[in-house]
């Protein structure tokens, strides 16, 4: 399963794709099956939204506590906020946040790989 993420242009906020819009909560993101072309179509559409977001990319998901969470630790930190202070998105709490906090499995993030390639 995959989700589409980016940073919002105006403030850098981590956002996720939902029905053609961008939302701040990972729990509300559209989920795409790995073989569903809709994910790549959404990514292509997002890349054309030049005044909405910066660098959209698809992330891999894994199941945690019956919910979906990013496989990559980096992406879980993006979805939650920094671990040293409780003032990111994780401050909201709830089952979806708890699932992200307890998720395991940390393949290297696609975003990170792209960043390395660009350098």
């Amino acid at each position, binding site marked *: 399963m995959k989700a589409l993420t980016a940073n919002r242009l105006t403030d850098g906020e981590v956002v996720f794709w939902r029905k053609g819009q961008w939302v701040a909560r990972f729990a509300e993101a559209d989920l795409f099956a790995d073989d569903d072309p809709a994910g790549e179509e959404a990514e292509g559409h997002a890349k054309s939204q030049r005044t909405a977001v910066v660098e959209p990319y698809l992330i891999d998901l894994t199941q945690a506590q019956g919910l979906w969470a990013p496989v990559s630790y980096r992406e879980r930190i*993006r979805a939650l906020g*920094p671990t040293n202070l409780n003032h990111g998105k994780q401050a909201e709490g709830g089952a979806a946040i708890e699932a992200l906090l307890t998720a395991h499995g940390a393949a290297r993030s696609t975003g990170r790989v792209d960043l390395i390639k660009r350098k």
Partner: protein
Amino acid sequence: MYRYDQIDRDMLADRTAEFRGQVARRLAGELTEDQFKPLRLRNGLYLQLHAYMLRIAIPYGSLNPTQLRKLAWIGRTYDKGYGHFTTRTNLQFHWIKLADAPDIMDHLASVDMHAIQTSGNCIRNVTADPYAGATAEEIDDPRVWAEAIRQWSTIHPEFNWLPRKFKIAVTAAAKDRTAAKTHDIGLNLKRDRSGALGFEVMVGGGLGRMPYIGQTIRPFLPATRLFSYLEAILRVYNRHGRRDNIHKARIKVLVAALGRDEFASQVEAEWEKIGHTPDLPDTELARIRGAFAPKTFDTLPAVSEAFEAAKLATPAFARFARNNLKPHKVAGYAIVEVSLKAIGETPGDCSSEQMEAVADIAERYGQDDIRVTHEQNLVLPHVKLDDVAAVWAALDAVGLATPNMNLVSDIIACPGLDYCALANARAISVAQHIARKFADPDRAELVGELKVKISGCINACGHHHVGHIGILGVDKKGEEFYQLTLGGSGAEDAAVGQALGPALPYDKVAEAVDTLVETYLRERHDGERFLDTFRRTGVAPFKEAVYADVH
């Protein structure tokens, strides 16, 4: 401290207006991200994991209370109420909105500050001894030269598109508090036998993927020829630096490839072309020097009865005095170090309330002078011994009186994977775990000087290569792992640390540091620091202890 003149202010006003226009064009879609990114980076604005990050230049780590209060206000108004002091003696705000950035630039300009050249392949903020003007050890005030370099290098047309970023340090004391030998150029002020002022010039130091210790290419450069010599170095670098490979583009790689002697001879040949006239007019040097005229100090006895009585009455204050006070050049005064490493907190973080408190203290007791160190702490360089107890109490009231300078919990840590888009692993939480292990101040003092430095990736913003214990976060099959090195030093005895062994998982790092410390305590001879013991014994006893423990 140096005050901007009208030319400086006009330049900043132009620059912030230009940046405002660039941001407006980006938000309107007239600039693509690829077009805008180099423009925002030229103004210190990065996009990180959670938000934009603004890196503000603090020239040679020197601040006045008005500036620190403005930073506190910006933190409260535009960020989440705090900032993060870095190993470049800069301040980073990690929760900035793009649309706010031009206003922030205007507010910074109102107190003679900016974020220019805190990113990009140009000459970055100059590092200087945080004890400048306060220590009896110094040959001359390094801030005078750091300021002259700042003026010369700011928007210098020839050196704004170097092969890679470029960092210069200036120190004037035998004890190096700038990590000069890990800079692209390290300048050590000296006097020759005739008393003339000059610099030992070290080139090619640097950390990151390929760590090198700087090498001396000129033992004594007359101070009057500094800028032509810097120009010659930068021209050789600009001509031959590896623009084809970002990982080999720093000057350290060029110096290593050519060899010190060949590099030095190319610099000398280039220097010869420039000519032999002094390159900084005496009048201009005098003008800059005037901004750093010695403070007015009262004539005081060397021993303060009030200070001695406070130490006897309050053990916690006595501990603070033992660890956080350094000798001042004037009798009756002290240099007070302010730790930004409270146990369990984020190294280098400082809340807006804490910034305001430090500004108040500096105004009341510290001659309006505040310094930022490359070890992510603050310094009040001029405090009367009679006032140290009051300063301690005021610092303690805002959680800034941690008595751990140079001890094991005084850890350098980069923002790491909690904030940084380049990081592989977290650094802050590893630092927090280690600090908590050594929360007992008696034990920390028993261990003595021990510099732990943590980086979340190979770019080495946490200076791990030169930590007595260095910790590097790596991505190992998708998990956070940490490689430990021992025996590094960023001081005058600079050295790159030696690998301990296989990388350790996240939850074993603090335990391993504890084991290293126990091994040191077992092996040490009288008076030896951790670094001395390691240099005598080598890695073997440490390696044996850690891996026996871990596996």
